[in-house]
């Protein structure tokens, strides 16, 4: 019951924020200098006018805005100005799944590596295992994707020819982008898991569990991890959102046909409808994932539920 109220309340905050985001983006992109049809070779005035009429940007701003809003309600974001062969909705449906897939692989990699490294380090604090795991994590945090990506390509594609350089056609193509995307996050997760686990393992309930004569594996994985993982869960929402929305660099390095590239390109091209559509999708994703992470926290931690 409490959970349902909590979810509903959060959902209620959702819509006004979304509305604000749509509105601000709509006006902001139109305030930026340069229009979608400015090009190096200038078109005739008549052609420019008919283009503007075709896409409706010759009408007063408020009228465009209300039309856009009614469109959004019907999930119709209009045609892409720059790439007219498809509508914005089609572009999003085409490109978003790729970004989601990449983000999911990246997150899976980050979690698997980060959790293992963190637990290992916490089990034997200040040992060589701890130091090496945390050093690798520190490096992972410091090395940006645009360095790590080409480095991995150099080693695993150009020197050894084990993996393809770029593209998204086969499962083999997806390994390097996923690793590059997840690496930085795995490092954060490792450090958080270590911290969380160290704190959890020194708690009374762990001593109780041990005193009950439970097997160490059960103590660590069931009782320790459940408490120690909480900072990671709290981080997971923003991390997942970051992975999904921050994949632009990785998509560029590996030629992944995802939404991140489309979004950045559309901003450069002043493709108004495409920018608005992409911002909307990202806003929903970020808010949705944060909501999920809040709910999970409540589910995992009886203290939060009780509050």
């Amino acid at each position, binding site marked *: 019951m409490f959970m349902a109220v909590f979810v509903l309340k959060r959902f209620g905050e959702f819509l006004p924020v979304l509305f604000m985001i749509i509105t601000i983006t709509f006006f902001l992109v139109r305030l*930026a*200098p*340069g229009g979608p049809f*400015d*090009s190096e*070779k*200038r*078109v*005739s*005035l*008549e*052609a*420019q006018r*008919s283009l503007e009429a*075709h896409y409706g940007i010759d009408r007063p701003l408020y009228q465009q805005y209300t039309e856009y809003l009614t469109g959004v309600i019907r999930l119709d974001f209009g045609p892409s100005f*720059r*790439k*007219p*062969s*498809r509508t914005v909705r089609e*572009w999003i449906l085409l*490109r978003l799944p790729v970004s989601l897939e990449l983000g999911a692989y990246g997150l899976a*990699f980050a979690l*698997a*590596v980060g959790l*293992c*490294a963190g*637990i*290992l380090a916490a*089990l034997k604090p200040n040992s060589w295992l701890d130091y090496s795991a945390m050093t690798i994590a520190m490096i992972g945090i410091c090395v940006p994707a645009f360095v790590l990506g*080409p480095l991995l*390509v150099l080693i*695993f*594609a*150009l020197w*050894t*020819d*084990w*993996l*393809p*350089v*770029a*593209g998204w*056609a*086969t499962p*083999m*193509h997806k*390994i*390097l982008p996923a*690793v590059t995307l997840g690496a930085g996050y795995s490092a954060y997760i490792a450090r958080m898991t270590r911290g969380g686990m160290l704190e959890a393992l020194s708690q009374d309930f762990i001593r109780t569990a041990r005193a009950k004569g439970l097997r*160490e*594996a059960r103590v*660590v*994985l069931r009782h320790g991890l459940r408490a120690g993982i909480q900072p990671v869960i709290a981080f997971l929402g923003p991390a997942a959102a970051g992975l999904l929305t921050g994949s632009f660099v990785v998509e*560029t*390095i590996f*030629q992944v*046909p995802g939404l991140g*590239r489309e979004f950045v390109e559309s901003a*450069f091209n002043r493709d108004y409808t495409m920018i608005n559509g992409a911002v909307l999708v990202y806003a929903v994703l970020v808010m949705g994932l944060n909501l999920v992470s809040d709910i999970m926290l409540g589910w995992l931690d009886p203290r939060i539920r009780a509050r």
Partner: protein
Amino acid sequence: MRCVRVACVVVFFMMIYFPILLGCSSGRKIPANVLQVGNGAEVQELDPHVVSGVTEHRVLTSLFEGLTDCDAATLEPVPAVADSWEVSEDKLLYTFHLRKDARWSNGDRVTAQDFAYSWKRILSPALGSEYAYLLYCLKNARLFNEGYLRDFSEVGVRVLDEFTLEAALEHPTPYFLSMHNHYAWFPVHQATIEKFGKIDERGTQWTRTGNLVGNGPFILTDWRPNEIISVRRNPHYWDGTAVRLDGIDYYPIDNQQTEERSFRAGMLHITSTIPLHRVEVYRREHPEALNLHPYYGSYFYRLNITRPPFDNPLVRKAFALAVDRNELTEHVLTGNEQAAPSLVPPDAGYKSDYQVMFDVVKAQKLLAEAGYPDGKGLPPVEILYNTSEAHRTIAEAIQRMWREYLNVDVRLLNQDWKVYLSSLNNLDYTIARSSWIGDVADPMNFLECFQTGVGNNRTGWSSLRYDTFIESAYAEADIEKRIALLQQAEEILLEEAPIIPIYFYTWKFLKAPEVKGLTPNLLGYMRWKDLYLVGE
């Protein structure tokens, strides 16, 4: 305790090394006899009358064919859909005889009506085509495109019969026949266009895989945006026996580094460009792959003559003379670029008479004459460029030259592409980096930009004498007299210096040794049916 640790260690190292565990071969097999081409940015569209870029040109020339084509070596017109043509005495009337075996990819005949329909389509104002201006040499085409004329029958194109087309020109245009390999002149299939929308409607679905009907050597078989565009042999193509490739795969790789790595890994046969810093490496290690050829493009700076100090022609000239172009091409640019003493590249049967050379003494003298001895009293000037590593490097070098030779405070301003265009269009700049790539191999294509009131002028400069020379050159049917007129026009342009020429472009790309039949030319035109692969 122990088993937890062992499990964690195993999973940890598995994840770290899972590329190795999974990796044994690097993915996709390249189909035999299919050319793999790196194609820069994703195409905007595959509609020849809507697009405006080079990447689109590469794809569209495989899918469509105009009345004539160009010989890749000489850029002279050769028969394509038209197998012969006659030109009237005054060079104003062209009669094309279309070959009877030219077919659309669905088997329909390519007729004269198809061309008339297509030219009407690109000239329709509602379509908003950026390249409609290439057809302005047709009689009344400009008036129709600008909306002053509603009746297309007054435009200079007439269908005499199913296979005969007549084109009446506004003025003699020596390059008229060489233009038809540009997509602006390509025919589109009327029934297909109208199945998906109106004649002047953009963004309909006719360009999708399965819908697109073309008349070129290849047909579209796959188009996955930002991934790949595949074309394969067109069984209905009239010159099918001459086509040696089974197909072409275009990869839209906009990141130059990614493209170069893909080439190194053997994924691509031809790239669209080379990252600046890799040129030296290839020159040293793989000179056979490196291709650097003269290109019909010019890199120059625009000066805003409506703003002081460049409202003074003496100041403009002083700035133009104080650029050491040879130092730039030798030490800053690495791809065999040539120093530019003029706007128009010295090719295609034309060379400027007047040359802007590096001359510090004269530059300082002119500056003194203008009232700024030793640069004293000159306000700070600002070089505007659009975001790019190369533009910044060049601007920094020129900034140093002007500071050193003219003692002027030069600042740099970087803007993103659209903001930059808007600054240029509104004359909201002092000095702006610019370039022009010839659409056709003719000096007029460069010089007509600087006529009074032309949209591409963007300097505020206007000269009646210049306009007169350009107009006379339009009307002149004699090739040599026309060249002389254009030279006189360019002399005025360089003398009054609303622009400062800097260097001429090179066409830079990487090509695998197994690709044969590619002839370099000024326009960077790849004639796909000439290309073939050996040793595969």
